């Protein structure tokens, strides 16, 4: 394949920076689960539509304040807003859009979780919904580095149904335009995580893979921030990975919890971006890892790649963390922060 870039080009003396972070989409604190259950209800028409009233907004504000405090207390290197309003998980940015109808409840990947199927029925336009969340978060971060989170365009298109554009390529392009416009409205952020589980779970075929990479490139170009594209629940197919490296992004994420061999193979065979994100703590299991074990896994991955030294290594959970009970989610964040500190003082 001619378009594969090998990027083992760094000077040997570069010191790697280890950055603890998460892909966002946090669990609500238990008190907020209760309060919002009572205020909103349990049915699908009770979920967030983007125009929630004062009382509900106040609960989310308090909960946001709390999860930002949790990240600060843990000393995470990147602070996310928490995406606590994202009732429909990664489909959220569409679920609050006027050009979208939310229909039946459908399964969220292979999990025992469900979201409302977003059906795009009209021309998509940005809503500023995610930007306003980030602005609210920026007011709380006390200068700590803020990280934005969005679904990647391929995953968002995969989670949605197109009842308007009519053509798969046109639909993906429209989703990319939409996400780029949303991202363009963001306040200043240090990092943007684009979550792309569908690149693994429903891998693009020939042609689609190249378009997915272009769509990602377009969204990434809309922000003045480091962009991490994070696929999870396995490893990318080789060709998908190779195309992804063509996008102008700063890091690709690897889910080493669910698949070590194929992820390692991809990096060894096709190289990597200058920065890398390592999903090393399990976002879907209550077993809390030892920080030392996470640090050892970082060293292990680096040890498998003798020629590469990364500028930045993001240490993260492999998946979103809303799957976890709240107290366990807090512990996972603490472990990541500690592991990054350990890796920093004992570089591989």
């Amino acid at each position: 394949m001619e378009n594969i870039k090998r990027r083992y080009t760094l000077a040997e003396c570069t010191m790697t920076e280890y950055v603890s972070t998460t892909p966002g989409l946090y669990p609500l604190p238990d008190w907020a689960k209760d309060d919002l259950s009572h205020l909103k209800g349990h049915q699908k028409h009770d979920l967030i539509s983007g125009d929630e009233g004062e009382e509900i907004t106040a609960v989310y504000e308090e909960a946001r304040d709390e999860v930002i405090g949790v990240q600060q207390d843990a000393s995470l290197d990147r602070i996310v807003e928490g995406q606590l309003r994202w009732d429909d998980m990664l489909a959220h940015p569409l679920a609050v859009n006027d050009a979208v109808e939310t229909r039946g409840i459908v399964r969220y990947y292979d999990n025992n979780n469900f979201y409302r199927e977003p059906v795009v029925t009209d021309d998509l336009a940005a809503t500023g919904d995610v930007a306003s969340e980030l602005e609210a978060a920026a007011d709380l971060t006390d200068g700590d580095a803020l990280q934005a989170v969005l679904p990647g365009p391929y995953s968002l298109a995969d989670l949605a149904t197109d009842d308007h554009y009519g053509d798969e390529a046109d639909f993906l392009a429209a989703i990319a335009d939409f996400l780029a416009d949303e991202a363009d409205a963001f306040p200043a952020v240090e990092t943007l995580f684009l979550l792309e589980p569908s690149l693994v779970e429903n891998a693009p075929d020939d042609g689609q893979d190249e378009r997915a990479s272009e769509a990602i490139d377009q969204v990434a170009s809309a922000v003045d921030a480091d962009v991490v594209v994070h696929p999870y629940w396995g490893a990318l197919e080789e060709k998908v990975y190779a195309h992804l490296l063509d996008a102008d992004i700063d890091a690709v994420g690897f889910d080493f919890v669910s698949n070590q061999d194929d992820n390692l193979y991809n990096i060894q065979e096709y190289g990597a971006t200058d920065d890398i994100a390592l999903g090393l703590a399990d976002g879907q299991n209550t077993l809390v890892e030892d920080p030392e074990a996470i640090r050892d896994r970082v060293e292990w991955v680096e040890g498998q790649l003798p020629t590469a030294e990364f500028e930045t290594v993001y240490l993260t959970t492999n998946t979103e963390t809303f799957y976890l009970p709240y107290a366990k989610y807090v512990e996972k964040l603490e472990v990541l922060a500690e592991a990054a500190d350990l890796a920093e003082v004992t570089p591989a």
Partner: protein
Amino acid sequence: MSDNKDQFRPEDHENDHFLLTSVVGSYPKPKWLNRAKELYEDDEADFDEDNWQEAKDDAARVITNEHERAGLDTVVDGEMRRNEMVEFFAHRIDGYEFNGPVKVWGHNYFDKPSVVSEVEYDESWLVDEYKFTASATDRPVKVPITGPYTLASWAFNEAYEDDAELAYALADLVNEEIEKLVDAGARYIQIDEPALATTPDDHAIVGEALERIVADIPEEVRIGLHVCYGDYSRIYPEILEFPVDEFDLELANGDYEQLDVFKDPEFTADLALGVVDVHVAEVESVEQIEENIKKGLEVVPPEQLVVSPDCGLKLLPREVAYGKMENMVQAARNVEADLDAGNIDIERETPTPADD
């Protein structure tokens, strides 16, 4: 086809044909039971353990009687003593711990437990429930048990190599419980495995778990497997290898769109067909349910057909749940009479042999 169905035929059954009528298990709780639970959980209220036990006993009697009045051939207590299908068992099995609620969708949560050490059998899970229900009715009692694959999949696994190993360990415990239930007199056990719909590729794990479950269980004990809301083409015909008498399948909700899946190869077990939709809060007419029952006859002959709702009825208003059961029984009796009279002529296709 299974030989142990006829033991459930009522002595005074009016037709020659017999389509066993049953339910999946759960049933709407009387509002006063939920109120009693609130009182029990309220430290300020004067409502102790004995009061709470009495309330659950009363509810179990009432709902068992409600199943009888609907005319069901086999009854359940509506799972009045159970809160949720995984939590209930996890509280009774050593090795589980609870860390708080997790999201299923929207603001619907469940206390997903964690398996933190080897699972072990401690107190009996269902024997008291079975004995109580059996003493409250003359009808045969069916006992639903959450299956080991679902008990494993819908928990965090901190202690076992993988979910298969955990499922097998749990299957041995389910086997132990069924032995105790059989000793107590139970003859109809239903294993609920809704998690199989999430991960259909794991059907071999469910099959191996079932082998452990039925080990040394006498043949006259009828074992059913309930599966719902999945893509059945991904588990059929492989499930025919499972050592169970009956498959209890949700099909009404999808308007029998997936019925053809089961026509080829030949359905060799008994089919407990979902004939009323538990997600529609309107009672289907007797005529409509008769048509649904006849869908089952496209797959199996009458001797292999059992009639059941799609799934547990617990999310329906109680009067709707009752109406669905009552009409379902009436429809089954009507179809039996039509079969007796030779008025039903349904061609079943000749399927290719399973090993082809």
